[in-house]
């Protein structure tokens, strides 16, 4: 297919661009296969806006006389308005944008066409290998092994080719366990707590069904992670009634009789469509132009967004608490084990593991616990809060995770190597990107699409020294402790950096951020100067001594 076919009017002049907190700008609008480009005609201060079609969530058009107006709502929650003279031009442009922003074939997406303008210093596709993780693990324990039972993605299509499992369980047993777990997602190691040797596993629900089916290998697998005489916790992200109902559809939960060493805790985390609705309502509230204070708070409350944040953080803290404080191993799952499960396991690691609070460590966490663990990014992030399509597989699961990280970050502003901008960029790229990292729903799909060969990795770009400096938190001081966030409502705030990003004046906050950077930069410069001078002095003084002595 040629993109040109979809572009009836590639260019329009005298277009006015309106954005909140910016004066309207007049300029030229161009459409290309993947971008909407607006460039102002002012020569003194030419301004260009490049918008990926895939970033467009919805588009509305209206006419006043022959002046057409297009309102474009983006997946990063920005809203822009374009006034286009000429009814036909406007209609053409609107329909082109609509077609180009809803291409259904992955291989037509921009990452397959994008040619980077930077030199690749490190190929992000191979930056975070499970082998490397396993090496680190092997240096502290020999109870685990790397299994390639899923080499062909045949045992579990949503798992990566390599997984870490208890050493005592062989591949044959894993195949059996896979048959006992929803979607073949048998329990695998998610995190090993070096401090006390406790492990966090994740899986999907067991397929016990109504007749209480059991699987000896499954029991053996998860028991292999327990110290003798100790018990473990199963954290089920569904409420008990839902877990019970799941039995009718062949699913279920671990029953005490068959798992006597495990205690089950149900911590409800809301799923797909409810989250998507909550997301839509929250964004609506944030864009509400009315002046009424009461309406704002009740809309914020009615969106339930912060409730979801609180629930999710609580569940993650609970998992971390079981491991660190109770000295117990933990198995986390919901139904499929691809959404709430990953939220809990990855957040628990943020709390427990200082490495996950560094830039590379966090990237590794996203790769390990989200991309490789088979979170269906392409489905979940197909549309954002402005979409009218409302498909049931769309949900801001990853965004919720990022926001929880931000909440912890806010409570421990000196314990993270990255800054808020880093999290915002990950949010943007999960929804629309020139990089292939978040395409596809699993490693299997990514392998089939040959993404590592055909597209550029987000990490190749983010980890370049120039870019990295934008993501560094100037206040960072490595903190080796477990960090326990508060989950009280007073401690949780709306993530303004995402939700109010486009409708609040940010100048003063940016100035404050700059000031913080300056204070620390100046301090470091002075330190370097003082150290250099000290060295110089010391040298001169020793020289003197040498001269004096003879």
């Amino acid at each position, binding site marked *: 297919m040629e993109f040109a076919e979809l572009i009836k009017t590639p260019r329009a002049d005298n277009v006015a661009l309106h954005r909140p907190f910016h004066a309207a700008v007049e300029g030229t609008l161009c459409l290309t296969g993947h971008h909407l480009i607006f460039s102002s005609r002012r020569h003194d201060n030419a301004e260009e806006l490049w918008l990926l079609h895939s970033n467009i969530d919805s588009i509305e058009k209206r006419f006043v006389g022959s002046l057409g107006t297009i309102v474009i709502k983006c997946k990063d929650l920005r809203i822009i308005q374009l006034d286009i003279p000429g009814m036909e031009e406007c209609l053409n442009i609107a329909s082109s944008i609509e077609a180009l922003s809803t291409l259904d074939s992955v291989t037509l997406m921009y990452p397959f066409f994008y040619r980077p303008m930077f030199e690749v210093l490190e190929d992000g596709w191979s930056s975070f290998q499970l082998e490397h993780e396993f090496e680190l693990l092997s240096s502290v324990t020999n109870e685990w092994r790397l299994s390639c039972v899923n080499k062909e993605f045949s045992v579990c299509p949503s798992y990566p080719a390599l997984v870490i499992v208890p050493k005592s369980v062989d591949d044959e047993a894993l195949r059996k366990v896979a048959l006992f777990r929803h979607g073949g997602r048998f329990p695998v190691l998610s995190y090993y707590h070096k401090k006390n040797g406790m492990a966090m596993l994740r899986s999907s629900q067991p397929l016990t069904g109504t007749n209480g089916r059991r699987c000896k290998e499954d029991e053996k697998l998860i028991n292999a992670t327990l110290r003798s005489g100790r018990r473990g916790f199963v954290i089920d992200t569904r409420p008990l009634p839902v877990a019970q109902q799941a039995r009718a559809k062949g699913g279920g939960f671990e029953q005490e009789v068959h798992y006597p060493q495990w205690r089950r805790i149900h911590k409800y985390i809301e799923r797909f469509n409810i989250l998507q609705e909550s997301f839509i309502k929250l964004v609506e509230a944030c864009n509400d132009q009315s002046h009424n204070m009461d309406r704002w708070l*009740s809309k914020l409350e009615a969106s339930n967004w912060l409730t979801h944040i609180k629930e999710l953080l609580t569940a993650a803290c609970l998992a971390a608490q079981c491991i660190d404080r109770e000295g117990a191993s933990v198995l986390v799952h919901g139904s499929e084990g691809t959404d709430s499960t990953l939220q809990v396991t990855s957040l628990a690691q943020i709390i427990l593991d200082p490495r996950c609070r560094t830039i590379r460590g966090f990237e590794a966490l996203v790769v390990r616990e989200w991309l490789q663990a088979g979170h269906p990014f392409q489905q979940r992030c197909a549309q954002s809060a402005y979409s009218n399509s409302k498909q049931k597989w769309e949900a801001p699961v990853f965004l919720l995770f990022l926001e929880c990280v931000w909440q912890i970050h806010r409570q421990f502003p*000196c314990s993270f190597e990255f800054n808020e901008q880093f999290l915002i960029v990950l949010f943007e790229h999960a929804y629309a990107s020139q990089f292939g990292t978040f395409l596809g729903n699993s490693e299997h799909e990514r392998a089939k699409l040959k993404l590592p060969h055909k597209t550029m990795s987000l990490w190749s770009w983010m980890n370049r020294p120039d870019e990295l400096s934008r993501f560094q938190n100037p206040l960072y001081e490595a903190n080796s402790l477990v960090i326990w966030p*508060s989950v009280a409502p007073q401690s949780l705030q709306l993530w303004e950096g995402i939700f109010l990003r486009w409708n609040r004046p940010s100048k003063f906050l940016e100035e404050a951020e700059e000031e913080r950077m300056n204070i620390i930069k100046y*301090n470091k410069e002075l330190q370097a100067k003082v150290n250099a001078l000290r060295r110089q*002095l010391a040298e001169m003084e020793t020289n003197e001594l040498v001269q004096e002595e003879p």
Partner: protein
Amino acid sequence: VENVRLLDRLSSRRAVVGTLYLTATHVIFVENGSETRKETWVLHSQISSIEKQATTATGCPLLIRCKNFQVIQLVIPQERDCHDVYISLIRLARPVKYEELYCFSFNPKLDKEEREQGWKLVDLNEEYTRMGVPNNYWQISDVNRDYGVCDSYPTEVYVPKSATAHIIVGSSKFRSRRRFPALSYYCKGNNASICRSSQPLSGFSARCLEDEQMLQAIRKANPGSDFIYVVDTRPKLNAMANRAAGKGYENEDNYSNIKFQFIGIENIHVMRNSLQKMLEVCELKSPSMSDFLWGLENSGWLKHIKAIMDAGIFIAKAVAEEGVSVLVHCSDGWDRTAQVCSVASLQLDPYYRTMKGFMVLIEKDWVSFGHKFNHRYGNLDGDPKEISPVIDQFIECVWQLMEQFPCAFEFNERFLIHIQHHIYSCQFGNFLCNSQKERRELKIKERTYSLWAHLWKNRADYLNPLYKSDHSQTQGTLHPQIAPCNFLYKFWSGMYNRFEKGLHPRQSVTDYLMAVKEETQQLEEELEILQERLANLQKSQSGDNKVKSKQQDRSKQSGLYTSNNSLANTPQEYSHDLKSFPSRSPSQGDEDSALILTQDNLKSSDPDLSANSDQESGVEDLSCRSPSGGGCLPSEDSGKDSDEAVFLAG
């Protein structure tokens, strides 16, 4: 009373046993056992309510709520003891004479001269000179020199030059409590001014020539403008209701060239109830997000804060952008009027956003113009209907502005919190009584100390590290966003959940940056010394040069700055399900605590407010320590920080 248990509000499992002491000025709880013997001090004047709850098997619970939003829950084993404590506290918390208040016994061991110097720190004459009055348009009037015209006004008031004594007195007779229009803020740049008064006694039709002349005079004092705004900060309905009582508001037809404007800020009773409702929300035990947000909305608190801000924004805009003078009043002109004038001044004049300037602002708009501190904050036992968080709201408005303009203020959040604390503490004489007249009669300046001097002495603790006097945010007028801006107003947990440390960010960016800045300063000094030495060395070339330099070890200790990490090491109760789980070993957790950074590195704040962090129990710390004015406790108790020694010395 011995064997009293102090409960942790967030978790009933965490309680400490100790001894309760009642002194003439404080309630003191001292923990048993532990080496630190942690103490909790509460001033009687901070106590807002005491509640005796039904006796249970473990004892008799006593709930003490404080005006600085601390809540203390005690369980006393014997019902009789509890009753005695309850009765004594009720009496102690409600003094009837000013002389019973703490400031008359509080002695920071400063000599007479130092005390007098302290009171001179904030000088209003200086302030009016700074604003640029008296000048061609404004003069100082001595019409109120013996408080003869208005007993709640200061003796020295600034009025338009064309307003004669006759006009002033005439106008005062037409105003509630004779609070005639007087200058609050003068804008040197464009001659526009903010004046304040009480409501006119207009009823349905009454007029007063002198009052009309007075407003005319205010307009004339700003030659660049042909009208003035008259801002009535009440809701229109309230103002209309006042007409039936012979009061009311200005009729635009009777006054030439005024533009009249209502700005609906609710009265003190609505505000008191609103705060009450919000505090109930803050006190909820493990509330859900919905409980909290719904309760916050239902309290209406943030709506009221926004109303005050909106009024301030309106006035600041009129003065700065339109160059029009504004007369502000409410009913008596000492509550809403004070709030609105000071919020507007704060936006208009960068000076008020400095530490010194902020003290001046409170002294000018609140203290000198007769804000009824004693009635509003219940220092002496009085009518509970007079109590209302009027200045608390102003302080919150400042905080809301600080959140929007992080570089604009010289002081930090802690400064605001400590001022709020001392408005209720009665430890310093500044906020005693209801008017300047009463304070003079009581000889406050001779018998008590000034808070401003105390805060000024510790100003290093109150600095905003982001403040730079040449930064764009510190210049000129602040323009807060008007609409849509609801989401800009946020719940201030640093104030209302102040003692629940577990709810706050565990690491303070402000403290971190202050520490960095301090280090930077030391580095600058060292750099200078090193450069000097180097120059000398190069000059002399021989070894006779013996410049001794301060050998400082500037190597960064890891974690030098990070504060309160200890809190990080105790999880909250994330699930009650865990209770029954048997495998918990008691020694767990020690390992983490051992890693904690020394508390000495923490910038200690005002000693009576600084909380000693308990590294084991972490999540919450109720300790509120106070300089021991009562002197009932031996001072060798460990854990006293150095600042406190200042008060104990001698």
